[in-house]
């Protein structure tokens, strides 16, 4: 067991290191902006005093390295800074402290997590079941139809899927609402109802990926000699699957699931925009458009962290389910 533990610790350390380097990459990328943040915030016609005050507020008079550590420290303690939009508002209009980035992001982050979880709850069981079925009945009509369907849905842009679903499930047959105006203190069932259409869109895209990968993993597995051996020992098809294939399929399936949840992160951005879902993805896109650097930076780091975490989970799960590592020689 000690062996496995040390491998997992190693992976965790590697994940942390990656995250650290990613934070540097993001920070450096943002600092490649020409000129000065202060000008960016206030526009060309700003008064020198206003520029100066913003510069001091942002600590732009310090060196790059000390700014990085300041930013990183802030990130770790939950202080994500103040958005340019808010800062601009304060500086030009006077008035008290507005919302910080953390205050802006927190509720939206929760919303996005909710959407991701609803999607996962639908997509994972459906995709894994269909993937296993497609592998079992491979090269049948069912498998070919599933192949064409999944290929098409992978190939379609998310917004196409979203509009097709809106068309059929919201406009032509008014079953679900097409706008996801979610707010605090909403009843759970209402919230679910409003998130269902974006969740279904994401499900369609993610399911297709997950199903194809599950199918490939299972087919790979079913081709192994020990499955043939189990069949030649006269075991029933059910027993071959449950007893012989499944314990070995667990690692690849977990891997597939985690990888696709990571993929969800990208999909969430477009889908949130289509459905006007108040999640972190929409905030991110809005901030990109108005070049609100602190928000973009923070969102980017959160997305990257989630992505790395999911990949790390996949990695560790597959280590844990490998009998060669669990029972060393």
């Amino acid at each position, binding site marked *: 067991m000690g062996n496995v533990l040390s491998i997992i610790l190693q992976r965790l350390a590697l994940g942390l290191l990656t995250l650290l380097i990613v934070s540097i990459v993001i920070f450096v990328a*943002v600092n490649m902006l020409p000129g000065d943040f202060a000008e960016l915030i206030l526009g060309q016609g700003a008064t020198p005093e206003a520029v100066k005050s913003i510069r001091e507020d942002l600590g732009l008079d310090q060196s790059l390295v000390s700014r990085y550590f300041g930013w990183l420290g802030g990130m770790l303690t939950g202080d994500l800074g103040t958005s340019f939009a808010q800062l601009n508002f304060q500086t030009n209009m006077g008035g008290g402290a507005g919302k910080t980035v953390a205050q802006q992001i927190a509720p939206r982050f929760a919303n996005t997590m909710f959407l991701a979880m609803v999607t996962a709850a639908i997509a994972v069981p459906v995709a894994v079941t269909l993937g296993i079925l497609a592998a079992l009945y491979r090269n049948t009509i069912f498998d070919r139809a599933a192949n064409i369907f999944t290929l098409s849905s992978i190939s379609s842009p998310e917004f196409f899927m979203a509009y097709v679903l809106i068309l059929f499930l919201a406009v032509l047959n008014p079953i679900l609402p097409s706008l996801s105006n979610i707010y605090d203190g909403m009843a759970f069932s209402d919230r679910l109802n409003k998130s269902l259409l974006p969740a279904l869109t994401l499900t369609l895209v993610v399911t297709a990926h997950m199903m194809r990968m599950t199918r490939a993993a299972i087919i790979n597995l079913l081709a192994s000699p020990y499955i043939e051996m189990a069949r030649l020992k006269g075991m029933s098809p059910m027993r071959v699957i449950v007893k012989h294939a499944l314990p070995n399929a667990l690692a690849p399936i977990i891997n597939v699931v985690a990888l696709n949840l990571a993929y969800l992160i990208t999909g969430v951005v477009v889908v949130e925009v289509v459905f006007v879902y108040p999640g972190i993805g929409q905030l991110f896109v809005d901030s990109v458009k108005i*070049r609100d650097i602190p928000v973009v930076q923070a969102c980017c780091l959160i997305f990257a962290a989630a992505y*790395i975490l999911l990949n790390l989970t996949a990695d560790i799960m597959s280590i844990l389910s490998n009998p060669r590592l669990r029972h060393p020689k």
Partner: protein
Amino acid sequence: MSFVINTIICLAVIAGAAWAFRRLGQYGTANAPQYRDMPFGVAFGYVLALVVLVWLALAYVASLSSDTAVANKFFFLGVAINGFILFSIAAWLFRMFGCHVGTQRTRKLFRAMPLTASFGVMIILIYAILAIFAPVIAPYGQDEILQGVAANIIPGGDPALGGDPAFPLGTDQIGRDIMSRLIYGAQNTVGIAFATTLLAFFIGGSLGFLAAVVGGWTDQVLSRGVDVLMAIPSLIFALLLMTIASVWSARLGIPLTVFMVLIIAVIDSTRVFRLARAVGQNIVVMDYIEAAKLRGEGMWYLVFREILPNATAPLLAEFGLRFCFVFLTIAALSFLGVGIQPPLADWGTMVRDSAAFINYAQFAPKAALTPLLAAGAIALLTVAVNFVVDWMLHRSSGLKE
């Protein structure tokens, strides 16, 4: 709630029918093996497929109904079914054509081709022609605002609905011909995506082979760098870099599209690097490479004469997949408003601009076609490329056995 209950009842009825179907099969064929050993799931699948087909047929009939309320409701299904049948026939004819025209090799290729792949090849050819000859084919310019033409997004050019036969797909809110913009979209969106993929392949491919052949420190540094870049979700990273690029583009006066091509190419080249390195490494361990090294051959000979010719098949398939990915990323960026910039016509932007018309589908189904046309144009090409790539991969994996 009633929707859920209905679904459950339907499934239960189908399950019962499946059981009956298998029983009848066994009884009718005197226990022939195909019914005797049929798992319940397979029987269920047959009945389910039958139910779906019958429903589609009924929906198709309903879409032709004279009652506009009913016809409107099934209009899109009707369009989809018509499209499916039309494309299937076209693909079949195209394959027939390919089987009888051309060199010995292409004929043989077409004969072994499944219908999905020939559909893909056909669509890719059509898009290529549209993209190359867009200025010749398109009746109007992509940013030409037609004076004195009422905006009418309803396709069909039916004067009864306020349309004009000169604009078969209608005109957009500010009076530009939608068909011309769709055709120019092929040139802009596809062309830019193609150029980006080429650039990504050039960067990723050359670095990947370099890492595979040289190994050691070069390989370590390049691979770790790529690991870090790949730890950031690509669309997110692209959006971040586009934010910064937009400032630079304003300052330097270079179009944002140029930055976009560079940014996406670099991000995507990481995936190409991984594949090229893996393929390269598989080839480098071959004995014929060892033989060439021991002969004293130089690096240039090794890469271009020994390695590259053996890497073309997997790289070509990857090129198709990467093209789809780049194409979708660019479409997504444009849809979000930070990709290809006006006045260039492009499909992602067109979807965004006309998305609101979807909500009129109930009363004026044709109005909702406009955003779907552009989105569908994107989907159609990626589906086509994916079908071809799927077939290529299938073929190359089949040859190994």
